[in-house]
């Protein structure tokens, strides 16, 4: 490896990263809106966050500015904390109703 990572990242044009991240993000949004299983919704949210990470790293490498990459570390750390809390909430619900289907939770109506 005599090339450093920002240079490797820059071998692909920036637009491709933007399109890729937008596609990944859209898949995540669609997943949240259409799936009914709490765990799959949760996975879709993680997909959205990782699309953001890809985008930030790409911008950061193309601008030679470390801020974006540091931001990614914070997003990862916070996402990990969110996973811990979110899975705890899902387990708590599973214990009460033996399911993770969000449609079963209709005690509170819109």
């Amino acid at each position, binding site marked *: 490896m005599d090339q450093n990572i920002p240079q490797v990242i820059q071998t692909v044009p920036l637009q491709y990263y933007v399109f890729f991240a937008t596609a990944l993000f859209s898949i995540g949004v669609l997943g949240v809106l259409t799936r009914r299983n709490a765990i799959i919704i949760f996975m879709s949210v993680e997909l959205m966050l990782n699309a953001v990470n890809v985008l930030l790293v790409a*911008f950061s490498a193309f601008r030679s500015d470390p801020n974006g990459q540091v931001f990614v570390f914070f997003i990862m750390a916070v996402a990990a904390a969110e996973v811990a809390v979110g899975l705890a*909430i899902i387990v708590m619900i599973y214990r009460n109703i033996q399911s993770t289907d*969000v449609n079963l*939770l209709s005690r509170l109506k819109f």
Partner: protein
Amino acid sequence: MASCSTIPTIREAQASRYIATNMNSIILLSALGLGNLFLGFRRSNRLLLPVMMLILGLVLTVNFLDWNQGPQSFFSGMLIVDNFSVAFTGIVLLTALVLVPFSQKYVLDEEANLAEYYSLLLFSMVGAIMLASYNHLLMLFLGIEILSVAMYVLAGSDKRNLRSNEAALKYFLMGAFFTGILLFGMALVYGATGTFELSSISFAVQNPVNESLRPMLYIGMLLMLLGIGFKVGAAPFHFWTPDVYEGTPTFFTAFMSTVVKTAGFAAFLKLLVQVFPAATAQGVWLPTLTAMCVLTLLVGNVGAVAQTSVKRMLAYSSISHAGYLLVALVAFNGALEGASANGILFYSLAYSLATVSAFGVLKLVADARHREDYAGFNGLAKTNPLLAFSLTVSMLSLAGIPLTGGFFGKFFVFMAAVENGYIGLVIFALLMSMVSIYYYLRPIIAMYMRAADVDTAEAVPVTTFQSGALLVLALLTVLLGVLPGLIAGVL
């Protein structure tokens, strides 16, 4: 993480002030919150409530030591403590201080983990303080997350109750989803401007290097607007509010609808004033924001009329108050010291005081009588005159009747809007606040004019701390309504 583009004035300010002061309130809250956890090892919970009130009182005092010290910046200018942030931190801490006495039920409850609840509240206030003092989009993100993650846990703190579970799941999934949207917006703004620093973004927005990046910037801004709009519960992203507020244990609902909302609006205002003030950018923000504002006012007020549960009515009422605060945001006049900022400050204070007392009375009545509908308040004036009085004051303040803080809150907000030429919007908001009088008067009528029935004949038990807190809240609300000059125009 030193930012390459920090403007020199901030660097100098940082160098000269770093040793002199520190972020007292954030450090104190984190350290004392941790210490508070150790108190949970004791078998008895009785010490916790007084200790919690002491901690909040201490932090509240320390917070105001930074008043008028000029802007101080921390972490290479990522956090800035100025009068704006001190004032909003003050509201947050004061709200929490008068709110904690209503957690008395948990002190006697063997199942409740009171030390953990209190520590999570303290930690989430760290997030609220960061939201009032951020100067870097990373701090905005961290502030929102610190505030929200603690609230996800507290929303589900009633583990056996399915409604509480559901509220936690809904809040969590929607909150994480909108955090993703907010982050995508931030990433696009970063791509278009090359920085996360508020002043540098604002500079880059006004002096674009590359015109072709403009669409990316606008999409990023709109996505950020959606993300924050969700956090403050503005329509059309309000759909989670009634459900989550109703399912969450009432004590934490009160915290959500006051502290979270106040901090959210402080962050929203900073974003509008310090990041996207350029005339070109307003062409994107303003129409969206105005539409959100009108929709929020409509949904909140009309929705509240139809409710049969007082708790759900208060949830819709908190949506409608987000609408009034959005009126001030639409009319912001370009500085954190301006009429809009002062209007939002006064409004947040008046709203927080009234809401805490409304939720406090609701919690006491609901705990004693196991019902949350209007009829549960029948005859309360006979059995508990103090509760009935303080609920009346808070309802009148929320409705914006003169001689209460809520009246001047609405007055300042609407004045700021009229000065900036948004007369149509103000007329609409006034019409909506007339609608709100209908549902705010319903509990008052139930308490004073309806006779008590079999379920509601007994007095509701109230502790000394609680009646003290209710008296202080009613007094402050009336004081704000009689002498608004105490708070108005301090920024």
